[in-house]
């Protein structure tokens, strides 16, 4: 038992959180050993502040370490709630991303041996992001879909958050693979607008069709149009500068349609069929 006690002013400032780290550490060391000063502190401390500190400590202890993706998103300024919604997107799993990277890298490398595969790359590159959106909403692949449907969270908002997450992760993969292509540099990005266009059209069609069906219909139409065109050697007709303007116009039209149809879309996404 020590004969020395904390100055009442120090106790008051400590309780209010108004002392520096050195004084705080010294006061805490003494408080641990001195019941009289602890008693003095107890009568001084603001109950609400103590409760807030306790909550913060409990939060820090209970809150599990966030995954790599959530930490990365937090660094990019995404709030923790949105980061968690993104982290729950089924297509942001390693195997899916590796599969996309593997296929595109294979085709890009193979195009060095046979330049006809350049066209194949341009045809399949937009399907990666598009497939990601479909898988993100396939009822069999989103294990919490049933629970999510019964919550008040907007289905459209979730669709858009997940679509953005899929695009943000798959597009860089496809761009990286595209940089390995032989031929002119513009080819590496020529598929980009078509990819955004296909995704936008698929989202717009979701007002009438289930997301997976909408994506399937868009992908099928894309393959029908592009495979024959590319096989006939008219790659520029689909991916040249003029065609890019058409894709841009289609992106804008699908975006406007999506905005106009957001209410029926929200209703449609709000329930199971």
């Amino acid at each position, binding site marked *: 038992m020590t004969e020395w006690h904390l100055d009442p002013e120090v106790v008051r400032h400590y309780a209010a959180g108004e002392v520096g780290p050195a004084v705080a550490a010294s006061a805490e060391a003494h408080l641990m050993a001195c019941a009289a000063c602890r008693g003095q502190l107890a009568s001084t401390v603001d109950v609400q502040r103590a409760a807030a500190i306790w*909550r*913060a400590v*409990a*939060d820090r202890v*209970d*809150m*599990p370490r*966030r*995954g790599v993706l959530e930490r990365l998103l937090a660094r990019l300024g995404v709030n*923790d*709630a949105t980061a*968690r*919604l993104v*982290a*729950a997107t089924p297509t942001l799993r390693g195997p899916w991303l590796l599969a996309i990277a593997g296929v595109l890298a294979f085709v890009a490398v193979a195009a060095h041996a046979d330049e006809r595969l350049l066209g194949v790359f341009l045809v399949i590159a937009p399907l990666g992001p598009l497939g990601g959106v479909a898988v993100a909403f396939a009822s069999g692949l*989103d*294990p*919490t*879909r*049933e*629970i*999510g*449907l*019964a*919550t*008040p*969270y907007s289905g459209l908002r979730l669709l858009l958050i997940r679509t953005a997450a899929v695009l943000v992760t798959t597009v860089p993969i496809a761009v990286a693979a595209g940089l390995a292509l032989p031929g002119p540099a513009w080819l590496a990005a020529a598929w980009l607008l078509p990819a955004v266009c296909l995704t936008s059209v698929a989202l717009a069609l979701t007002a009438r069709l289930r997301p997976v069906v909408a994506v399937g219909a868009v992908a099928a139409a894309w393959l029908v149009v592009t495979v024959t065109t590319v096989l006939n050697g008219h790659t520029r007709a689909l991916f040249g500068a003029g065609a890019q303007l058409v894709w841009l116009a289609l992106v804008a039209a699908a975006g406007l349609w999506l905005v106009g149809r957001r*209410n029926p879309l*929200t*209703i449609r996404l*709000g*329930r*199971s069929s």
Partner: protein
Amino acid sequence: MTAVRVIGATKSFGRTRALDDVDFEADRGVSGLLGPNGAGKTTLLRTVATVLAPDRGTVSLLGRNPDRPDERTQIRRRLGYLPQEAGFHRGFTVFAFVDYVAILKEMTDRRARHDEVRRVIALTGLESVSGKRIRALSGGMRRRVGLAQALLGDPELLVLDEPTAGLDPEQRLRFREMISEAGEGRTVVLSSHQTEDVAALCTRIAVIHQGRVRFVGTPGALTAQAEGRVWMDAQRAPTALAAWRTGDGAYRNVGDPPPGAEPVAPTLEDAYLLLVGRPELEVVAS
């Protein structure tokens, strides 16, 4: 205001009619849907959970119409739902998963949300595994995680589809306690094909079979349906709808007793067997 009111609900999946002109009501306390697998219990519960819309009929939940998007959102703010096969993001920890559902339940303030997550984790006895990944948990523990997320926000209406399925006897008892506590002061609608669970928990039962409601009433009223139709005999009676040899070697027969048979006290299970074994029999008791 009745918390749950379903009138004339009909729902088909392709050629299968899952619900056929079903009427169902539930109010404060625990109400149970009893029926064999494929009877239509899950379809009715999904309707009550606002996930599914019936093809025909009207539904009113907490005084609101779930067909109207704005009212549906209002219902969902006061609803907790444990699906039959609750899926999880298995890589998430228990805390992270419950927190994820809390976000979907529009709990935007991080600190308050985490307080609520901690509350439901404590309510369901999951504190010790809060930081564990869900894929490392047993089936019973995962069921508790499902219940924890359903309890988020202290919902007025709790919909639990087969909450005790796949649990061992001890876990089932613990679950009964939790559901019983949850039923105080709110409306709980649960489904089960376990008559013991329903008898232990529910103040009101609806027996569903082949998409139709066969009985509505109290567990006592359902049990009373089997009065005089359960008897013990040295052998299986040909008139029995169901008969099984008990531990003491005698047969417990359920059905139409032969002359001279001495009836024994029926159980809820006996009455349930009589009801679903004879679909032409439809009873509505008060």
